């Protein structure tokens, strides 16, 4: 259960963001990607999530190329980007339900409600997400993490827009996933104390 990058390079336009990057993350590890604005963190995450094509080098999952594995690799993924990936015209509950079914999870209405409540959205489940505050929208997207059963989580600045309480909660969720043998790859500009022993830090420099 290892995700490895071999001599990975990313090019945007005519700018080389990084070249010949090597790293490997094992099950039960957290990879924190750091770096200045514009150093290529989002680009790296998108490449790892197969949303973007690989420019040069290889990404291996259990020693097999992820481009070859294709759907078999994607099935293991949960991706959360800058965009929340929720429909503004649906309610939080509907959104969560749809995410689950799309990912092949059968969840009861009760489980959905519990997840939303845990995320502090009690009383807001039945409003269209459009009217929720920035932080509440983010929480709706994050609620899926509570139900997700995939191994690899790729999270791009998940703490943005969250208040102190929500940040703590998310830290707990991430820590728990790592300790249960999951893999988490994330970026953040905030100092977040993730109190699990197995943090790898990867610093991208220009």
């Amino acid at each position, binding site marked *: 259960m290892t995700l490895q990058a071999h001599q990975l390079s990313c090019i945007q336009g005519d700018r080389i963001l990084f070249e010949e990057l090597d790293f490997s993350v094992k099950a039960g590890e957290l990879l924190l990607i750091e770096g200045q604005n514009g150093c290529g963190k989002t680009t790296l995450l998108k490449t790892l999530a197969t949303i973007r094509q690989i420019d040069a080098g290889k990404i291996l999952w259990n020693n097999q190329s992820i481009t070859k594995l294709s759907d078999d690799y994607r099935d293991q993924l949960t*991706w959360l980007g800058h965009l929340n990936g929720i429909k503004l015209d649906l309610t939080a509950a509907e959104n969560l339900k749809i995410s689950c079914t799309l990912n092949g999870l059968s969840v009861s209405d009760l489980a959905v409600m519990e997840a939303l409540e845990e995320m502090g959205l009690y009383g807001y489940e039945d409003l269209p997400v459009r009217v929720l505050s920035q932080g509440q929208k983010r929480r709706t997207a994050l609620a899926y993490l509570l139900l997700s059963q995939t191994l690899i989580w790729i999270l791009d600045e998940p703490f943005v827009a969250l208040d102190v309480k929500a940040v703590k909660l998310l830290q707990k969720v991430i820590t728990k996933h790592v300790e249960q043998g999951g893999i988490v790859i994330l970026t953040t500009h905030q100092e977040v104390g993730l109190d699990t022993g197995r943090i790898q830090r990867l610093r991208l420099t220009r």
Partner: protein
Amino acid sequence: MFKTYILILQRDLTLALRHKTEVLTTIFFFIIVISLFPLGVGIDKELLQKIAPGVAWIAALLASMLALERLFSSDYEDGTLEQMLLSPQPLFVIVLAKVSAHWLLTGLPLVLISPLVGLQYHLDFDRVIMMMLALLIGTPILSLLGAIGAALTLGLRGGGVLISLLLLPLYIPVLIYGAGVVVDSALFNNNTETYLSLLMGFLILSLVLSPWATAAALRIASE
């Protein structure tokens, strides 16, 4: 797989019904375009009868196309498309579900409203029936082909007009035979069956090919 189909279909219908205007406006667009013609062209009865099938089809074609722009772009903008692409469900099922929703929301209402054209353009009962039948078979083709165009132009500025540029030439066979059915039925040539089976053939062709092409285009667009 079937569950995913139902889920997405349901989702898109819910979204549309939460804004009822959207469904209604397609219908009204159709009605208005049809009603404008006599104003621009003149109200000569024979003339109107002659142009009725063509006008009805072109109005249907444009109405269906207008709603196409949002088919994938709203999912693209809020990031739900990324999630769909990463989901373990086969993409063409998702595409098919979205196309079905598009047809139920734009194609079907047009079929149901089309007798109005008959009234406004002095068509007799038989021709109205033929027109409805032709629209019933033809509008799903518009939605299916349209999905390819929508996927190809995803996220591009000026996508709306670009779609029409890509799609209108592809719609031509549907237009020719769709309008042909009605004209023919008036001439008592009894070739209507040939026309209808041709349309049917197009429908099957596009049903088989379009979801795959659309899925491929979506993958390309999101990369």
